[in-house]
């Protein structure tokens, strides 16, 4: 059972990495969600140029693997003279990926709000901005919440890719312990369990929120 003492030794370092992973997740969501909402609204814009530009951005943002976007920022940007730290690359890249994916989730949520309510607002003379702000967005965001939570779990998992751009998050810490002790299987298993310790309960919460939301939506009709 020597691996347990090893695990106890490695825990502090791994937990430090885990904390960083969570911080990157939070930063990416903080950047990506507002951008995603903006894109969600812009992709239904009556101005064709705006609409097409945003659709293109969303398609590329969703089509490119997160790993590519991460490395684009860290290894690719310097060629233009702009060098960013690994930490900034991490949450910029993941923030953009978040924006692209959540724009689709939010768009679906906004569209799920019954069209009749938008008509009622129009009939009352309420401006489009006010309709979005007070009637459509509050309900749309609530509808989108379970899917957004599910996506947050995926972004947390994606922080493990930041290993490749030298961010000292959880996987990096595990790997460096592994390369110095050669106990790869042991330390990587522990890291895996730490990831699972967060994602599995989180996914269970998301599933519950999802069930409650579909019950609420069925009720409302």
């Amino acid at each position, binding site marked *: 059972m020597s691996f347990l003492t090893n695990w106890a030794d490695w825990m502090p370092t791994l937990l430090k990495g885990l904390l960083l992973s969570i911080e990157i997740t939070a930063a990416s969501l903080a950047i990506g969600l507002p951008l995603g909402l903006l894109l969600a609204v812009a992709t239904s814009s009556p101005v064709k140029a705006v609409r097409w530009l945003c659709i293109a951005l969303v398609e590329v943002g969703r*089509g490119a*693997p997160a790993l590519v976007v991460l490395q684009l920022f860290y*290894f690719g940007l310097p060629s233009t003279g702009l060098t960013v730290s690994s930490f900034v690359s991490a949450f910029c890249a993941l923030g953009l990926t978040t924006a692209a994916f959540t724009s689709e989730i939010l768009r679906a949520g906004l569209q799920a709000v019954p069209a009749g309510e938008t008509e009622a607002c129009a009939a009352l003379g309420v401006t489009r901005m006010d309709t979005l702000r007070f009637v459509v967005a509050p309900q749309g965001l609530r509808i989108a919440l379970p899917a957004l939570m599910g996506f947050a779990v995926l972004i947390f998992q994606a922080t493990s890719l930041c290993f490749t751009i030298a961010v000292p998050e959880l996987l990096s810490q595990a790997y460096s312990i592994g390369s110095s002790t050669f106990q790869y299987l042991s330390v990587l298993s522990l890291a895996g369990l730490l990831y699972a310790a967060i994602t599995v309960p989180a996914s269970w919460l998301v599933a519950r929120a999802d069930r409650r939301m579909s019950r609420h939506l069925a009720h409302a009709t």
Partner: protein
Amino acid sequence: MEALNAVLVGVPLTLLVTAAAFAMGAVLGVPLVVGLRSERALARIPCRFLVDLLRGVPAIVWLFVIYFGVSIGAYRFAAVPAAIIGLGAISAAYLAEIYRGGISSVHAGQWEAAQALGVDGRTVFSRIVGPQALRVSIPSMASYLISLLKDSSIASTIGVTEIVFYTTQDARSGGGGLTVYIIAAITYTVLSIPLGLASRALYDSLRKKVSR
């Protein structure tokens, strides 16, 4: 266009890893979903645990575990097999959940009618419910295939010489790093287009065969 060449050289392995992992997952997903739906806790709980673990731990961690961590005697996995096994196992978990959704969407009356006719459980599953569940699952499976295509990029971290491997090599060796990454991003987007179209076509042709 040296950058484009660098990217294109990696495409065959990207496609190989994606296809092999998907095939493995599509097949292994079946016993997994049977286990998930089993009434016996002895089968259901380990399957649930396995699926949650496979989906809850990031893919790159799984690949590292298999590539760096596993040594059976003197044997260690080579990069490509490790990538396929890792991504294949994860795919099995995701596809099992997709199958589960498809199966539960098949009208309960189908089960009841078949059982009332005296058809045994296994045949009900394979000949009546299964095909309908599969049809419903196809869009989700296609969607997963596209995301698997992107996840195949993770294989580069254990040395598989696919798209990202060559892209990074090209970026770090010369100047113009930004261009090659943009080309890589567009390549992945372009590769997923035929998948989306094929899935739409397959779904439509299957739908014609079923009356509802």
